[in-house]
């Protein structure tokens, strides 16, 4: 389809303006009530598609701007509440997170109840439960409460809230433009990708994360919009922050293939750390939520006090998102034991902060813990095997990917995230090796991913993307069996076929027609044909209706057969390479049996 030129657009507009005004009676009869989806589809069938793409760009731009604002709000609050650079021994480190925690407890309870938590599951819930609806109040609440929490030093990050803010903006715009319910539902992941892309300054990772964790599948309907929105938001974010990656990454080199052993060690350490982190959250969060109602409001304050204590007594790096500390760690500013201490303290601080219901995300803490562990392992190995180990910064970078893969269970995103953050493809082997090891360890020791655990704790039952990826699809070949009876030719007379069926005690005849097509003829229908054509030896094919059985192949999903059983009691399955060659047949009973056996096997 050719693109409409400016001239043709002008002509169309002119024609539109020049159209005669409708008669007054018609104008008076037009209802001013909002149009229904069906009406819109009738009068403007392509409106949805076109708006969807245009709005994707708007969503991207707005999300990018809001994410920049959000980050600036966090920075300002951090400076105002904790001072320009927090140092141990400052009393404000104890007071700020605690007092802000009190305020947050009240806000989350009375004003913004939907702002609680990270935002990932809320976005998934909007997609799967609420038809893409995220209220404006939630967006505002998420912005304010998360900025306050992270700015005051709670050990949480801004990425997940950014994702929810983006999704919320998308939902708001979709509602304002009265898009269909289906479109509204698709807008949430579009906004989510835009928000995350701006927060990470990494569009590919954001797109992959949304596909891997939110949507769960590569959907052509939404992929183009997600890409448009993510790219737009990153362009906006880069207009402010510049095009450099989120972290300054030192030169990445793989000194020696033996160094892969060192990265494998990092994968093992990261896998166990991810399990520890998940288990702590899985235990502490439900326990805190089961406490009496009045304590819920105080929990963010208590969490703030604990995190403040960590900062006050020597490790202020643990407070807030910790991007600068990640940068310092990747540039060798800390010794391995300090890095290890920071990783452990961050796990504890984030567990407490998040479990208390303080709004804020898990991405930045995950990156922090991964970077500290990675740099710690790198430093340790460099100290003891200096000839084997390259840059410590590379280990920090790979460590981030490792925790991402192990804790958030998004292996593909974790690999691409490291590529985008490093801008270097030569890191591919260490990343894939370490991430895979961490992912496998985490998956075997903690089968339920963290986001799924959180949704279950909240009483929701959202689809698990990890399980969906692992799910085996049943195919026609699983239900296929050889034909028991005989195959008849289209030239056979009805009487011959009827006699044969009677002889074999069969109730269905499979007939090969011209052009390698098939027809399934039940014995009852055959009887009618035979009765109507007594004494005539006409070929059966000429007496059959014109339709034929559909082309079905053994490798197709089994559910493809279901639509055809209302017409055909038995379906012939043919070979893809040799036209018309019969591989076998399936009946409705075969298909049901196959599904039941599969379901039984899983249960």
């Amino acid at each position, binding site marked *: 389809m050719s693109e409409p030129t400016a001239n043709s657009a002008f*002509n*169309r*507009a002119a*024609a*539109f303006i020049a*159209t005669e005004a*409708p*008669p007054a009676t*018609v*104008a008076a*009869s*037009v*209802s001013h009530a909002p*149009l229904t989806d069906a*009406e*819109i589809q*009738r*009068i*403007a*069938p*392509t*409106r949805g598609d*076109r*708006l969807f793409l*245009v709005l994707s760009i*708007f969503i991207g*731009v*707005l999300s990018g*701007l*809001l994410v*920049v*604002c959000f980050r*600036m*709000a966090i*920075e*300002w609050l951090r*400076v105002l509440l904790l001072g*320009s*650079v927090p*140092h141990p021994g400052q009393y404000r480190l104890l007071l700020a997170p605690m007092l802000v925690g009190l305020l947050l407890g009240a806000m989350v309870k009375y004003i913004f109840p939907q702002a609680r938590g990270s935002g990932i599951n809320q976005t998934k819930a909007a997609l799967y439960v609420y038809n893409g609806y995220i209220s404006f109040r939630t967006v505002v609440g998420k912005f304010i409460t998360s900025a306050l929490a992270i700015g005051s030093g709670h050990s949480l990050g801004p990425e997940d809230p950014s994702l929810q803010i983006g999704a919320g903006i998308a939902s708001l*715009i979709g509602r*304002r*433009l009265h898009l269909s319910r289906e479109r509204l539902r698709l807008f949430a992941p579009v906004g989510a990708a835009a928000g995350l892309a701006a927060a990470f300054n990494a569009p590919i990772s954001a797109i992959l994360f949304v596909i891997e964790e939110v949507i769960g599948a590569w959907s052509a309907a939404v992929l183009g919009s997600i890409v448009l929105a993510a790219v737009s938001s990153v362009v906006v974010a880069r207009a*402010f922050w510049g095009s450099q990656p989120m972290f*300054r990454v*030192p*030169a990445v080199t793989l000194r020696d293939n033996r160094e892969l052993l060192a990265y494998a060690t990092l994968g093992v350490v990261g896998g166990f750390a991810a399990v520890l982190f998940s288990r702590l959250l899985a235990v502490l969060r439900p326990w805190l939520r089961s406490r009496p109602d009045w304590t819920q409001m105080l929990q963010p304050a208590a969490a703030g006090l604990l995190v403040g204590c960590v900062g006050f007594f020597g490790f202020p790096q643990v407070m807030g998102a910790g991007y*600068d500390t990640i*940068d*310092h760690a990747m*540039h*060798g*500013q*800390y*010794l391995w034991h300090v890095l290890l201490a920071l990783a452990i303290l961050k796990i504890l601080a984030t567990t407490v902060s998040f479990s208390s219901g303080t709004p804020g995300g898990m991405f930045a803490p995950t990156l922090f813990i991964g970077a500290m562990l990675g740099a710690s392992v790198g*430093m340790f190995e460099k100290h003891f095997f200096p000839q084997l180990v*390259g*840059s*410590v*910064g590379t280990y920090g970078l790979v460590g981030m990917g490792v925790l991402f893969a192990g804790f958030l269970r998004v292996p593909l995103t974790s690999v691409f995230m490291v590529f985008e953050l490093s801008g270097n493809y030569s890191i591919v082997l260490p990343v894939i090796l370490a991430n895979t090891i961490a992912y496998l360890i985490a998956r075997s020791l903690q089968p339920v991913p963290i986001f799924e655990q959180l949704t279950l704790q909240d009483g929701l039952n959202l689809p698990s993307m990890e399980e969906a990826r692992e799910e085996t699809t049943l195919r026609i070949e699983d239900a296929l069996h050889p034909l028991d009876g005989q195959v008849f030719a289209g030239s056979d007379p009805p009487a011959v076929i009827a006699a044969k069926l009677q002889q074999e005690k069969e109730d269905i005849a499979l007939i090969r027609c011209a052009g390698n097509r098939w027809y399934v003829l039940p014995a009852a229908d055959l009887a009618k044909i035979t009765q109507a054509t007594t004494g005539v030896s006409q070929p059966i094919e000429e007496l059959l209706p014109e339709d034929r059985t559909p082309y079905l192949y053994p490798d197709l999903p089994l559910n493809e057969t279901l639509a055809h059983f209302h017409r055909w009691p038995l379906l012939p399955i043919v070979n893809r390479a040799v036209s018309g060659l019969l591989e076998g047949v399936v009946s409705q009973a075969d298909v049901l049996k196959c599904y039941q056996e599969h379901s039984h096997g899983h249960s």
Partner: protein
Amino acid sequence: MPTASTADSKLHLSPAERIQRRRLIFQDSLALLSLIAVTICIAVITYFFFNSFEKHRRVLEKRWFARGEIALASGHPADAVDDFRSALSFSSANTQYQMALAEALAASGRIDEAYAYFSTLHEAEPGNGYLNLQLARLAVQRKNPQQAIAYYQSALNGLWLSEGTERRRDIRLELARYLLSLDRFNDAQGQLLASEGNALDNPSALFAIANLLRQAQDPSDASTAFQRVERSRNANPADILASLLAESEIAATMGQYKRAAQALSRYMAKARQFPTAGTVVQKRAVEEQLDKYQRMLQLIPFYDLSPKQHIDRVLLAANIAHRRYASCAAQLGLENGPSQNLSSDDAASLSALGTQWTQLGSPNAHALAGNAPLQQRLQAWTNQAEILTASLCGAPTGDDALLLQLAQTPDKSE
């Protein structure tokens, strides 16, 4: 959004539907326009919000860096580490802050941290001369000579943005000092001779090189370097005087007393030329040393003297040594039989010396004339007598002290 009436006709819309369609298009356009307006508003707000923080960030980073510099200058490197780290948290890519932090870490004794940090910076710029030098110094502190020398070499080969020649010369000197501390004299000599070529126009550097060459047990090259300092036009008077003294000492050590005396003579002349350079005590000591060398030159039987003068000096030395021997023997009471203060070996040596003197048969000028073997035997006896008496009867004075000095380096003496 379809807008043309042709599209209406394709859809077969009723007149009422057409109106609804146009109204929808109008509403959509209005919504998009309002969306654009909202976007512009948010963009403006974001711009001001962002810029306000960026300005504040710049102020903060400069403030923290200035605090760090003050802390470092006032001898509080631990505070400086925190301050520089704070500055870096606002401007993480600032190389100046990074270097300052690494230096502060090193200054505060956090050697391992400083080493780790410098190593990371080094990974990004392996050819940076400054980083290699700092790593070399840290490796010295970490007692890792192999790594230290490698980093010093990298620093020498590395990139220096300004004064590369001077910096490389200074690094060579630093490396040479380190090699000397490891007793690797030959390696140190190599570095010093290489740096000497870059220091010809810098007398103070040349003076330092000369001193190090002397420590590296290379008196010959050290002497040459000291001479270059002396000849240098823009040399510091104090360095010139020190060079002359050193040159004299080296010459004396090598038994070149004539050169030693000449150096001291030049010292006295320069001291008169630069009255403010050198103390009175130093000058007096140099005068005394000069007198000694001149007397020594009167005692040494140079081969370029006439035969008579040569024999006279051999005889003079032998007589002085014999007097010393007799005095020592008397002091030890050997004239009245074996002394109880003396070991049997020493007594035997002293006795043998007396016997040899007797065998030489009171040598005189006549007997020595034309008898080179006898002259040599007499000189050998003189040396032996001064050494033995010094060990048995204490350090000699006067001519005996000078003869002892000559006896101790018989091969080197001119």
